[in-house]
């Protein structure tokens, strides 16, 4: 990860804002896709986020979470998966029939496994 060099020299280097696709980790995506294949169907309409109770009050965004998984952006995903209350309202609106709630569960599971080096 290209991080800050600290402040030893009196200046800092900004973290790169690039989605470095070649450096990112798509093990989580592969895990989620295998266990919840409907995940691939998302076309990012945002219906889930619009109806999401958690998202009204906390910075939780299921549509964006799907993109994080697809791009292998693990760091922002870590927080995202903890914010869902698994109420399933998103399931009712999804026009592509994605099993949204299970995507969150499986993604959370994948992150745990990733941290235990089990992916």
């Amino acid at each position: 990860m290209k991080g800050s060099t600290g402040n030893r020299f009196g200046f800092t280097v900004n973290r790169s804002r690039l989605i470095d696709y070649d450096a990112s980790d798509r093990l989580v995506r592969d895990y989620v896709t295998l266990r919840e294949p409907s995940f691939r169907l998302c076309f990012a309409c945002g219906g889930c986020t619009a109806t999401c109770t958690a998202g009204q009050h906390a910075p939780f965004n299921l549509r964006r979470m799907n993109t994080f998984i697809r791009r292998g952006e693990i760091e922002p995903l870590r927080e995202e998966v903890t914010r869902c209350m698994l109420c399933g309202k998103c399931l009712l609106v999804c026009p592509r029939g994605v099993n949204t709630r299970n995507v969150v569960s499986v993604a959370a599971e994948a992150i745990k496994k990733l941290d235990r080096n089990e992916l």
Partner: protein
Amino acid sequence: MSTVTKHVLVAGGGVAGMEAAGALAELGHRVTLIEKDQKPGGHLKQWHALFPDRRPADEVRKYLSRRIDNRNIKLFTGVSVEKVKKQGHDLHIELSDGSALTADAAIIATGFDLFDARRKEEYGYGIYDNVITSAELEDMFNAGRITTADGRKPSRIGLVHCVGSRDEKVNNNHCSKVCCVTAVKQAVEIRQKLPSCEVFCFYMDMRMYGPYYEELYRESQEVHNVNYIRGKVSEASANINNRLVIKVEDTLAGRPLRMELDMLVLMVGMEMSQAGTRLAEASALGMGINRFLETGDHHYGNNLGHVKGLFYAGTCTAPMNITDTISHARAAVTETVRYLTTR
């Protein structure tokens, strides 16, 4: 070239059926044109103006009326085609009034039905007075009055794209093609007729596929200040002031958005018509997974049915605009004449 007069049945007197009947009659064939409504014209009867140039729909209606003003055409209204059956070389055709006739060939042009917006209950059509369909907005344009149910002038109107299209929940995975540009057209018309009214289009993708559609989209922003928010509306409700409140994600901002509106217009999509479905089922015509008629080949034979002598024209095969419908009807006539002269 054979000059022998043949008898062709055209099922459906909308845009496709009228064009097909007119073209066949012009070539000297005898045509029986069957229309289930009391008057021909199909959905065009209801429309005020057409995309992308907002020309009066009446101009196309008049063209089509002239087209079928031909002594070779016999028009029957208030009756529908119920069944088509091959009988030797001929087609045996049964009508809803119990009568039957024989034809050398037939063109199915039974068109589409607009999606019944009540099936998307979360949008509140049939529940809230100020939730209307795109077709009902055309009625308002025709009447020259855009008002809320209690007669007020709206100050903010929202247009929801893809109502009944691209939606697994209502078993329609297909795109209806024309709703995006219809929304842009109607948004511009609202802005022209009510300059103080804000207009918002809620879209998932802007599919400006036809000539001058993208230009209209650009004009809507540049000249008419139409607002576009990328997100699928998840629900509509009413607040204590009886204004509509919608929930949507502004996906480009990445945050949920809530907005009050005076009127919500649902851009209803296209489905295979009920009359066409009845005919297809009774006659064992194949239907695709989108429930429109399945054609012989979707690249080079999309006017062909699976029964010899039976041809398809227009939106009974897939959603299409008026331009494409007229072209498709003419192509069906070419196929029909080829069949009649070479069989």
